[in-house]
């Protein structure tokens, strides 16, 4: 380093960086790299921690845990099938409703339906929907959604009760109110990712459609959506993943009953709600079992989220084509 010293000319200010500068450079770079590695380590640590604590539960209950339906603390019988069912069913329902409205919103916001001012209003609305905490949605669900849909639900039961999905009464919390609120919660996710997907459709594709005399909706349904299809599918998968992991609103609205039912009006349970409700009071044996349930939830959400991420990467690659 100092070999260049004599290259200075008189009056020059420049000099080699001081030893402190070199040391600080090395140290800072090392710390940054360590921080990056820490993120990976954190993920690994989470997996390990939950897996480790779940091991006794896995040992004791094995695979039957996933297929049994009873939850009896006293007698030590545990099964999370209703919870798995509830998780998947509620998330699926939420996806159907929230996904549909989310995509419609995305179309509405990106396909020149609105003057810029109005577009901002609707976009802000969607963003505000995303900002409201889950527990507040739960509170609102209890006091607004449930009373609002109960009359309608019970009339469905009275008249169409022979159809399995209307098979029970809605006494309070249940699958439908929980799924409705869940749909509202994942709508922003689906809308945001779908908007990105639609915006990435090259302008010339839109031009071509209109140039051929397509009406606005023909262009949207026959050209824009198919082109953005991969991205929109990714949006749905990500929304599904979000729904799977959602806890509080469901804990407050799903009814926490270990029933396996197709009925929209019956109370049910989800893995996250199960954990939320039972953990605080759980004794050591129950904790192990709950850890096992946590591991199952982790597995399901990881799978769905990784799949969603892969689809989005694929979508990005398609656009660059």
């Amino acid at each position, binding site marked *: 380093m100092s070999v260049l010293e004599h290259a200075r000319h008189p009056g020059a200010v420049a000099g080699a960086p001081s030893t402190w500068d070199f040391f600080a450079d090395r140290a800072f770079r090392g710390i940054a*790299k360590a921080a990056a590695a820490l993120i990976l380590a954190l993920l690994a640590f989470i997996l390990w921690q939950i897996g480790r604590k779940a091991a006794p539960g896995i040992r004791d209950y094995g695979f039957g845990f996933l297929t049994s339906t009873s939850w009896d603390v006293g007698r030590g019988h545990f099964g999370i099938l209703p919870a798995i069912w509830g998780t998947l069913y509620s998330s699926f329902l939420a996806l159907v409703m929230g996904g549909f409205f989310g995509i419609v919103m995305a179309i509405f916001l990106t396909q020149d339906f609105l003057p810029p001012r109005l577009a901002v209003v609707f976009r802000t609305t969607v963003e505000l929907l995303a900002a409201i905490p889950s527990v507040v949605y739960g509170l609102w669900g209890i006091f607004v959604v449930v009373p609002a849909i109960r009359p309608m639900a019970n009339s469905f039961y009275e008249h169409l009760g022979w159809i399995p999905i209307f098979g029970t009464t809605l006494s309070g919390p249940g699958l439908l109110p929980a799924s409705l609120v869940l749909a509202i919660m994942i709508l922003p996710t689906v809308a945001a990712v779908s908007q990105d997907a639609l915006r990435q459709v090259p302008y010339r594709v839109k031009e071509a459609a209109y140039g051929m005399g397509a009406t606005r909706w023909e262009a949207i349904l026959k050209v824009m959506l198919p082109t953005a299809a991969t991205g929109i599918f990714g949006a749905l998968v990500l929304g599904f993943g979000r729904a799977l992991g959602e806890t509080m609103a469901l804990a407050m609205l799903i009814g926490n009953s270990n029933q396996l039912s197709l009925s929209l009006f019956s109370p049910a349970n989800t893995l996250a709600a199960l954990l939320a409700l039972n953990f605080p009071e759980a004794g050591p044996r129950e904790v192990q079992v709950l850890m096992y349930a946590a591991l199952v939830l982790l597995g399901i959400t990881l799978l769905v989220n990784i799949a969603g991420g892969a689809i989005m990467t694929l979508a990005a690659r398609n656009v660059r084509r």
Partner: protein
Amino acid sequence: MSSSTLPAVDGRVARNASSAGPSLRHSPWEVRALRSNLLTAGAWAAAIAASIPLFSVLYMLIVRGGSRLSWEALVELPPAGFEMGGGFGNAIVGTLVMVGLGALISVPVGIGAAVFLAELGPNSTLAGAVRFGAKTLTGLPSILAGVFAYASVVLVTGTYSAPAGALALAVLMVPTVVLTAEEAMKMVPRITKDAAYGMGCTRSQVIWKIVLPTALPGILTGVMLGVARAAGETAPLMFTALFSAYWLVEQGGIKLMRPTASLAVLIYNFSGMPFENQIELAWAASLVLVMIVLFINIASRLLGRRRA
């Protein structure tokens, strides 16, 4: 042009020869246009329908929450079962403390990792793995962050505590900070960094003197979004910080290693109680919580827009 001069090869051609061409008139009743307009009306209806929940929530918050919001509610301790009055002052403090602690942990780690991803090793295998890890962590259910913190801190220290809750929140905040900070740093123009390199800056100097200051608004936006989300989380706090009816400060000083109240958990607990007083307080606390979250969101947006 008169029809008599044109050869009538096709009757239709001859008939139309006197007009200017096919009819281009716009008719809303024509089938395709009708379908399109109906769909547009449907889209409007859907958009309005999707907005209704927001207004309903805001309405309930302002009406029911606002009616119970008072100075006492903000400074007093939570009431027990049949008590009247009371407030959620300790919950506000608890939320601020735990979110603050969580940010203290997650922000340096997140920015450090982002520096590595954006500047030091953007194409390395480690970077690819870290990006994958961060994206995966964004999808981690919040309750599992709580389970993790329970296993790592509560079981180890033997008590529910504020730091345990803070760790759970930090786990949820870190991915957001990392990914937004990386994006912000990647936006710093190449030529500006070149100028710094040209002057003989070490890599750390380029990062500290040029990249970080320039990317600061974007980084701050990401941090605040993470903070806003963390402030509203309940599940991670439920069995790490649990809940408390007392203040964090006692005559000994600040007691962090014990159950700590938070707005989110208070709302959850009170929402299930059969007492009108508690439910009213839950609404008031929800109003305060939403106001905090919205405030942080708006502030982060303004910051993001105020670039030089």
